[in-house]
């Protein structure tokens, strides 16, 4: 590996990143640059949705049922105010997509964060302690892996909802979805962290720390954690794409976020009802947005995996 250290202090942080090996491998892959730009656009649009979106889809006062089912602006009967047309109650499809990506991204990021936290902790313990603890955690993980992820998420979602009862439905359904997705996806993190931990724990710097008399928790979180974060970063990116799609699937099935705060999945479900009556734009545009978002995040993850893997360089 060549020297990536900041040897001169003069250039700014951004410039240093740009000049580094990571920056170079990013620059030299055109498709990654495109994916990066698209992802950045999505993130920015999601962050500043209220200012970016031409209409406020939640403001009932500005919605007119008279505008319902308008086709995209360039088609016959289209309205210049609604670039991508309107849905069944007259909301601007473009605005709902922007607001929807905000929810999709938010749910995705939050669930990846929680999945990673659970997975890293259990993976570290499993890999470092070994023995029966390892066997127990990994058997649980394997049982969970033998079901499709979406089924697990549905199961957890359904269980939490039935425990909480129908009354609490609206406000907390965000958190229910996040919990469902993170509990469905911690396994991948745990397995990756475990295998990396098992390699790292036999290295001599861990033994050196033990000889100095350091405890297991200290070694796990101070020594091992920084050294297992590389692969975690990679799967976190790939999982983000998966989590976004899973959230969309849950919402499509009607158990995701409430229709009053539609995510991309909810929009696709709403549009699905009108697909055969000719109003294709209500479902195709959110679907396309979802596909592009998922693809670009995935491409970023792929690049990160290759860039961090010295063998593929």
């Amino acid at each position, binding site marked *: 590996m*060549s020297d990536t250290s900041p040897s001169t202090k003069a250039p700014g942080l951004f410039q240093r990143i740009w000049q580094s090996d990571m920056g170079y491998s990013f620059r030299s892959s055109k498709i990654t640059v495109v994916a990066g730009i698209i992802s950045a656009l999505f993130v920015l649009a999601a962050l500043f949705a209220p200012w970016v979106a031409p209409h406020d889809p939640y403001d009932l006062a500005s919605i007119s049922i008279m505008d319902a089912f308008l086709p995209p602006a360039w088609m016959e009967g289209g309205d210049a105010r609604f670039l991508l047309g309107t849905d069944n109650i007259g909301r601007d499809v473009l605005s709902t997509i922007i607001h929807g990506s905000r929810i999709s991204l938010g749910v995705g990021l939050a669930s990846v964060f929680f999945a990673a936290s659970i997975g890293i902790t259990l993976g570290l313990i499993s890999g470092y302690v070994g023995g029966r603890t390892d066997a127990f955690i990994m058997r649980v993980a394997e049982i969970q892996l033998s079901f499709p992820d979406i089924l697990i998420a549905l199961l957890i979602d359904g269980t939490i909802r039935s425990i909480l009862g129908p009354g609490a439905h609206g406000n907390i359904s965000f958190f229910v979805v996040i919990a469902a997705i993170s509990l469905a996806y911690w396994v991948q993190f745990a397995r990756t962290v475990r295998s990396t931990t098992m390699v790292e724990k036999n290295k001599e*710097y861990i033994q050196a720390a033990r*000889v100095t008399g350091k405890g297991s928790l200290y070694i796990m979180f101070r020594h091992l954690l920084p050294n297992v974060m590389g692969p975690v970063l990679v799967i976190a990116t790939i999982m983000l794409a998966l989590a976004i799609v899973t959230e969309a699937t849950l919402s499509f099935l009607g158990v995701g976020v409430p229709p009053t705060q539609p995510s991309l999945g909810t929009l696709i479900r709403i549009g699905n009802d009108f697909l055969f009556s000719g109003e294709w734009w209500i479902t195709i545009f959110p679907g396309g947005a979802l596909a592009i978002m998922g693809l670009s995040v995935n491409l970023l993850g792929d690049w990160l995996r290759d860039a961090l893997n010295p063998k593929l360089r």
Partner: protein
Amino acid sequence: MTDKPLLEVRNLRVEFPTREATLVAVDDISFHINAGEVLGVVGESGAGKSMTGAAIIGLIEPPGHIAGGEIIFDGQRIDNLSNTEIRKIRGRHIGAIFQDPLTSLNPLHTVGRQIIDTIITHLPLSQKQARTRALELLKEVGIPSAEERIDHYPHQFSGGMRQRVVIALALCADPKLIIADEPTTALDVSIQAQIINLLKGLCSQYDTAIMLVTHDMGVIAETADRVAVMYAGRIGEIGPVADIIQQPKLPYTVGLMGSIPAIGEDVERLTQIDGSMPRLNALPSGCRFHPRCPSAFAYCAIERPELIEAGNSQVACWLYDKEKGQGKSPAHGLQKTHTKAVSKTTTQPANTLLQVEGLKQYFDVSPPLLTRLLERTGRKYVHAVDGLDFTINRGETFGLVGESGCGKSTVARAIVGLYKATDGTICFDYVDDGGLDDKQRMQMIFQDPHASLNPRWRVREIVAEAIPAGTGSTKQKITARVGELLAQVGLAAEDARKYPHEFSGGQRQRISIARALAGEPEFLVCDEPTSALDVSVQAQILNLMVDLQRRMGLTYLFISHDLAVVNHISTKVGVMYLGRLVEWADTDTLFSNPQHPYTRMLLDSIPDLTNIGAKRSQVGGEVPSPINPPSGCTFHPRCPFATDRCKSEIPIASSVSGSSVACHAIEEKRLPDWKTS
């Protein structure tokens, strides 16, 4: 001698383009190999020696490429051949042997299949004829019961046997030249001797030339006809082996020879070449060795020296230039200082610091319960350490030697408390050291300088971690202490801000030592601290350890497989074989008058630098598996003096002429005296 050499390399240049700059791994080198000749290529890691070998057989990994010069093999230019054309030469006319016998055979095919395939590719033989030839080859390389072994898979062979198979593979098309890249580095000394003898014998039999790439001067001394010394991508000196080893001309070769510890030589400090090989992206101007060279003068930094005749050899050094080097003579800074070391035996009354009694360390490698029940097998244990007694006195250096797998490292880990001993006691300063207490008084230095430092931590954090969290340790105090510790091991205080990957192997080992010293220990356990380092760096580290010991009154347990290193640094030596100590004595006694047959074999198998071209005597056989050790004396299957008693009865240590030896043959006075040479 024919006029035309078998292989001629002219002005070869190998480049690696990277983003920042083009790195030149091999820079404008020329040499030749005559038919049937053994050319040794030596140099420290990064010198470009393997790259030269790879260039000849066209195996340079892209993006590296040959950027200039030509390679002429048997009258034909081969550096510009297409892939298909070079394939006809590779394997057929030029064979290759690589370092690691574990990875150079395909684990999914039987060894016979691999040899037969290679034969059929290169020679017009039928399947049946090829098999007969494969069998012959396996017999020739000394594989016992070859008829049966030919259908075995690589994992069924031991390391030494596998390397024999690789040699058979290289020889199978009767090539004219073999490129052997560190063929013995991954093997134990005793196996190394067997392989070297085999290689040499076969090549003189078939009149095959060898380009032997290695860092081991001993191997070169007994094998090569001529030697090329490489440094930072250039050939520094090339000439007949006797001249290079006995009268080296290049200051670098002089230093290299001086930094190798030798048995029978009692020097206090090894010759030390300061610094380390420059990185390829920061090569010095002029002569690349001049920043480290004690005889360098102003002109050395200006122009690159070319090879010129000097005596029987050719040297690339301005000292030997008639005009530039006028009046200059090689400085003597790098010659061995023949000051007799202070008597190694401690005169002060023995003061036991560490006492190990009946130490046993077994590892459970049993298959799972269900398998055990179904196959009706019991539990399986690796007898890593099987009853070990020794004491270390304060201020001593106890050297522990043995081949790989004999349990040396396990002993180290048991002593510092990384393992809980199965049986026996370890008393540190008269207190039973039950677990990981007393950490500050006992520290460990590890083998691999790349793995023993956390790559994500700065040096400051790494060293500071080991500083005991005492009262009132402020940030300033810790920083000051880290600087102090780094200074003690010869690093700068500013280095504390860097990450481990910014240092070379030797510097990392210094950091490792600084960390070990942080708790002001009395006792350091050193597990092969220099075996991953180049000889010139090894000399630096050994000298540092000797200095620190004198300054701080440290006690060392020094574990190594290298007898010469142990001889250099230790006051007492214990020889381990399969988990037991077979002999221990004062260093001088052990090396001048070894008793146990195993010790004698080990001493015999060390390549001797003074004895050029001499065959070393071999130890037959290999170390048995510690899962199922031989009964009685564990050494009896390899011992020429074994009797029935040795097979059944475990020998008890007894004192014989100053040594403690566990051997029936010595007890019964059946053993001849050690050769008096």
